[in-house]
């Protein structure tokens, strides 16, 4: 047991970005998140709106008896809002909240495929030189001449997210 526990973080340090990714579309861009954090994918459902939440928080949903918050990733990334279609999906991800793990659903335009990315496929995020903070982007992957943006979903939903939500709630 102990040896396994030690070896995992060590290998992650080499390149924690390699591994399996779930890719999905938002507008014209392709994004990818690590499969490990994905709990399930489902079609769009009716969401119960919650007052006093930022626009990108669409509300809550019943996931087998658990109430989970739903975030529209388009709105989160300041993309224009789009009417939900047959292809629209809710990807339920597990992230680390301030006090333990929690599940959050993210709404994306459509889920594409699961890819295995090697270290060679992944490039660091280019420096845009304008001080844009992109801490939530792990890097870029070039697959068949298309760029996939690798997201750290924990950072996307957590760091800025939880702070802003707390600010509103308080």
């Amino acid at each position, binding site marked *: 047991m102990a040896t396994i526990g030690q070896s995992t973080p060590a290998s992650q340090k080499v390149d924690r970005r390699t591994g399996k990714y779930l890719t999905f579309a938002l507008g014209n861009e392709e994004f990818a998140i690590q499969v490990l954090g994905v709990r399930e994918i489902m079609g769009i459902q009716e969401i*119960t709106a919650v007052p006093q*939440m930022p626009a990108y928080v669409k509300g*809550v949903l*019943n996931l*087998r*008896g658990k*109430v989970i*918050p739903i975030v529209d990733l388009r709105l989160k990334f300041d993309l224009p809002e789009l009417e939900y279609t047959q292809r629209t999906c809710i990807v339920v991800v597990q992230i680390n909240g301030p006090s333990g793990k929690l599940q959050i659903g993210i709404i994306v335009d459509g889920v594409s495929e699961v890819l295995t990315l090697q270290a060679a496929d992944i490039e660091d995020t280019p420096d845009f030189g304008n001080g844009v903070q992109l801490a939530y982007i792990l890097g870029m992957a070039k697959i068949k001449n298309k760029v996939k943006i690798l997201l750290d979903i924990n950072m996307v939903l957590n760091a800025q997210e*939880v702070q802003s939500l*707390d600010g509103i709630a308080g």
Partner: protein
Amino acid sequence: MPLESEKTKTASGAGSIAAVNPLAADPELLSDFILESREHLTSIELQLLTLDQEPTNAEAIHAIFRGFHTIKGMAGFLDQDAVRDVAHEVETILDLARNGQLAITPAIIDKILESKDYLNRCLAGLEPALESGNLPVPPDNIALLAAIRSLGSNPAGETQPAGPAGDVSPPALEPEAAAAPQAPPEPATAGLSELARVVSQVVAQVAAQVVAEAPAEAPVESGLPADSAEGPRANAARASGARSIKVDTAKLDYLVDMVGEMVIAQSLVHHDPDLAINGKARLGRNLSQLARITDEVQRTAMSMRMIPVGQLFQKTARLVRDLSRKAGKQVDLELFGEETELDRNIVEDLADPLMHMVRNSVDHGIEMPAVRAQSGKPSTARVTLRAGHQAGHIVIQISDDGRGLDQAKILRKAVEKRLVSPEAQLSEGEIFNLIFHPGFSTADQITDVSGRGVGMDVVRKHVQKLRGRIDVISRPGQGTTFLLKLPLTLAIIDGLVVGVGGQRYIVPIFAVREMLKPPEDSISTLQGRQEMAMVRGSLLPLVRLHQRFGVKPRFENPWESLLIVSESRGKQFCLMVDELIGKQEVVIKSLGETMANIAGVAGGAILGDGRVGLILDLEGLFGASNGE
């Protein structure tokens, strides 16, 4: 099960007894030790209180002995010397007692209770060590050890002819009990004697467990009706005879969630329009059967969260004993309806207020024996705790036969503290309710236990948090009764499902006074902004739910919509919604920490169609709209 784990401990321990005991710092063993010891200490306290009533109850002495003995064994094994020494001394005393060489006196019980508290403190100190790995220095126990020892030496010499009082020969089952006093613990002694000690402890422990199992089996085999045995014995049998397992509460919650989902799925199938075709009687029958079963499963799942209120009551037994001795009063505690079941969380949150009320009764309610004799009452006072069901609620009653509340004194104090004006005409109930006011206390002197001014207001706050209410009934000279009315469970509320635009919300029914469609002329405005409705002759502020939550309503005019008259902090107001959809019992779910503090939302609930509805927090809604 415990037998098994003991064996594995020995097996792995045998090789590593050398100089430092590595097992002593093993967090898993340590947490097992803390958990098990706590259980033993709890049952020890119960048995001690039994013993206090009947000092010759051999069963109770044995049970207490076994408890301390097991703790001693485990503590020795884990190098918890302070715990082991205290447990050992107590055990020696108890050994004398069970061999008839020492009569149990209240003083002895006091010391044993004290030791039990000491052990509890040690355990509490150990808990942080589970994380940090640094074993703490246990609290000082020298005085305690000496005190316990002196208990054994004095009366033992005086009491009985029992010649060889010095070397008590213990029963063969516990060889270690005799061995330990002769060989005081020396860390430097060679491995061999250490090994012998560990082995003998384990043997003794196994033996003790075998003994512990035995009484549980006995009544079953003998086929004697359990109720023929006297109270405490029947209690002991029930405690050890109840077959139970420990389950992680998270698992239980998950089960309850899943069952809830199953009920929803079942009801969706049941009401599916495709099935409502004539001539499908068999299908209908089978579906009804399914509905009955899911219903039953749900009820069973919910009942798993329930625990009998008796555990809580028994905690007060110790309190009453300590308080009455300290104050020199004689008090009998009577418990009724201990088997009444309550949600686990409620029982936990009820402990503090209940303790406080019992304290109040003993401290303020009950007179000194001399005073009681003068007024012709029996010198031993009576405090009664009673639990029972009443109209879908649990009612807990705390009564004493003391002096009762002094209306004049309460009123005087309230006027003094400017809570009421001197001219106010108050009813009896209103006067009694003053004691729930923050900072109110009738005790003239500040005593150790109560009368610090924080009291009944905290109790009321606690009870309200549990969605319950508290009432006082009191007769001068005859006593005081506190009545607590609590919901069966915190997990479920009765709610009205209301609709606003496309959204549905749940209004907790306990907050609803009435509902009405107001006539147009009953609505008026204040400065063109604040709206009011005239309901039964009083003007109530109007809160538009759609405005508060930013939802587009179906009706903009109050006279087309529905008004829910509700009360928040003693003030009534009207909540405007589109329509009433129905009434439903809902399971309360948290919205998660990111949505924990939304003004006006208390949580979420799964509605009959599987969608989430928000449960309204009317106090928050009204407060927020007031703040504007």
